[in-house]
């Protein structure tokens, strides 16, 4: 709740409308890339670069202004970040929901469960309702993978990497709060390295999946669809979180933040823990079960 010691209202800013414009350019480029228009990819690239430039400019303004912010602004930022993370949770919930629905309801139905005996018998008699699906209902239109992605190879290592990175980030945070800057910088570097290692292994795993020996692709039926959309969006969010961590590292190295005033650092940390928790959900529901 606000206090009586005056309010902070930011000056008018050109960044919001630039942000809207850059978002528009990005999606316009994206559609045209998908449609194979010649100018699609260049526009998409211009859009993405301008989004990044816009964020650099907007956040720089905020960083420069931040000494004049009062406690109320700080609380607003914190609440804003928390609600934003909730919206991200719900985004993943949609894809987890699709996975559960497809696996728990659709697959048995396609296999003849409930009142669907004729669907199975007449339309797709060769379909076997076993998850992960290795024979799709129409296995010529959607070629199923030859084997499923195991949990205890790279994914298990990745789980360890991400969990560890959450710990190292917390160590860095504690160091920041105690004013131990060298320790802070060290553990931020370790965190970033673990995040990058995760992404590299994820790429290796994707290459393995797309290899002919395995044949697990986006187009290999609902198993591949849910696998790649869930892990792909997670990887995308790790990338965003990694960029946040990298920016925080640079700011730490530049001597930004004080022991009791470092909201940006905390927001990045919350986001990083969030992608960590999502990964645990993925590891359990996409890989193990």
């Amino acid at each position, binding site marked *: 709740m606000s206090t*009586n010691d005056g309010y902070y209202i930011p000056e008018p800013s050109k960044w919001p409308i630039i942000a809207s414009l850059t978002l528009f350019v990005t999606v316009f480029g994206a559609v045209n890339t998908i449609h194979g228009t010649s100018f699609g990819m260049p526009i998409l690239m211009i859009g993405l670069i301008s989004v990044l430039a816009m964020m650099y400019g907007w956040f720089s303004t905020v960083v420069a202004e931040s000494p004049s912010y009062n406690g109320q602004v700080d609380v607003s930022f914190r*609440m804003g970040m928390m609600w934003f993370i909730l919206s991200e949770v719900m985004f993943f919930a949609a894809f987890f929901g699709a996975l559960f629905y497809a696996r728990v309801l659709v697959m048995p139905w396609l296999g003849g469960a*409930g009142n669907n005996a004729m669907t199975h018998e007449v339309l797709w008699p060769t379909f076997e309702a076993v998850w992960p699906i290795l024979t799709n209902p129409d296995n010529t239109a959607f070629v199923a993978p030859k084997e499923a992605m195991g949990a205890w190879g790279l994914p298990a290592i990745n789980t360890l990497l991400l969990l560890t990175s959450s710990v190292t980030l917390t160590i860095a945070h504690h160091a920041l709060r105690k004013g131990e800057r060298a320790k802070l910088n060290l553990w931020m570097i370790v965190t970033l390295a673990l995040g990058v290692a995760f992404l590299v292994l994820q790429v290796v795993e994707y290459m393995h999946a797309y290899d002919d020996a395995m044949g697990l692709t986006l187009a290999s039926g609902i198993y591949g669809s849910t696998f790649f959309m869930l892990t792909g969006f997670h990887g995308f969010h790790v990338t965003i979180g990694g960029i946040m961590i990298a920016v925080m590292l640079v700011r730490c190295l530049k001597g930004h933040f004080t022991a009791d005033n470092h909201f940006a650092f905390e927001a990045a940390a919350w986001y990083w823990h969030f992608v960590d928790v999502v990964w645990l959900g993925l590891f359990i529901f996409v890989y193990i079960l």
Partner: protein
Amino acid sequence: MSDDHHDHKPTGLGRWLFSTNHKDIGTMYLWFSFIMLFIGGGMAMIIRAELYQPGMQLVDPDFFNQMTTLHGLIMVFGVIMPAFVGFANWLVPMMIGAPDMALPRMNNMSFWILPFAFGTLLSTLFMEGSAPNFGWTFYAPLSTTYGPASTDYFIFGVHLMGISSIMGSINVIVTILNMRAPGMTLMKMPIFVWTWLITAFLLIAVMPVLAGVVTMMLTDRNFGTSFFEAAGGGDPVMFQHVFWFFGHPEVYIMILPSFGIISQIIPTFARKKLFGYSSMVYATASIAILSFIVWAHHMYTVGMPLAGELFFMLATMLIAVPTGVKVFNWTATMWKGSLTFETPMLFSVAFIILFTIGGFSGLMMSITPVDFQYHDTYFIVAHFHYVLVTGALFAIFAGAYYWLPKWTGNMYDETLGKVHFWISLVSVNVLFFPMHFLGLAGMPRRIPDYALQFTDFNQMASIGAFVFGGIQLLFLYIVIKCIRGGEKATDQVWEGAEGLEFEQLPSPAPFHSFTQAPEVK
């Protein structure tokens, strides 16, 4: 930061482009919504003109489908939602004793995404092939396998709208939770603020799900995934589940703020406190929670296990309880009040009666076996137009008349307001009431042609539509006239008006509402 520093208004185009002011941004939202009302309304006129008589007269069937699709999308995402965000921008800071929204720059971005998003959506009308033509619910496989190329523009347009809505609602929640004046406890907040708090929560919870489902559409269309393709182990019905998990809370996103507006207006013109304040708050929260577990009542006929049909039927009926509490409370507020019927009150009373008609037809359709007859007929069209036009849109009219004097400092023309009300009231019922009978008699929705026996009621509906559409030009005139001048409004505006915006701020309200926190008792 000194206060007087912010007293001067920025000038020129930059005032609007770079705004960090909740009133300016609220104004832009409201005008945007108004413009979209006429675009979406124009499409409705095309639909009603084609349906004036059986046979094909004016447009070809594909264009007719584009009109029904875009009409729905524009009215939902471009008119009702932005209008309520405009009200939230204008009123929430004034009502809770704050200077502005909590995150003013993000507020501006939320607005300025909208012209791009709707520019994208409307541009599909001019694209090769056709604009989206699969209905505003964009069911797979109509939107995936059979969707025109422009569907991808539509998908990214929806992404942009989603980003805008999520940022807007984060802003509203944070403002309400963090910017209240000392003494403004949660249970002292005006009901409009409460309804928006809960609406914003719903938006944050379901707009990402909408983003998820259009993303699945995008990959199904372009990258070979099979979410909605049974041949690959997916299911087109899954689209409907994910869509309506968003879609049903979305329905309440469009009505809860209207409940808030009506709950502000009725006490003023009854000159009584709102009856059952806390039950209003709990009823709103109950409706919001229930909205997450009733989605499949939109899809009874699609094929679902019996247990599912039963669960969704019973859960849906439960919603009638908190909604009934609200209608009861509004009625009880008027009971033995010293009532006067200025235009906002007229629209509010009409809202209660007509929204209740829409609510009852909803209750009828919640009954699964009965819905098998109503499903996808004009009965459902009648139902959701009663809740969205005579519900949400009437609440927007009521709210606009109620707060315009506070916003502009001038009273609107009461006589013209009453003319607007009475013609709207009659024509909207001529427009939508016959649709109940058409639906019960079996006329399906979303068709450009129909069997001869439906002609009479369709002609009635079309005539009602032309009058209702035309009279909104009068509303535009009234608003412009009010902005340009008129009898000066007092600070309290209405004799019985309560709340910080009427008791502690002049009319028109200053550029930044409260530079020092007001005392709230």
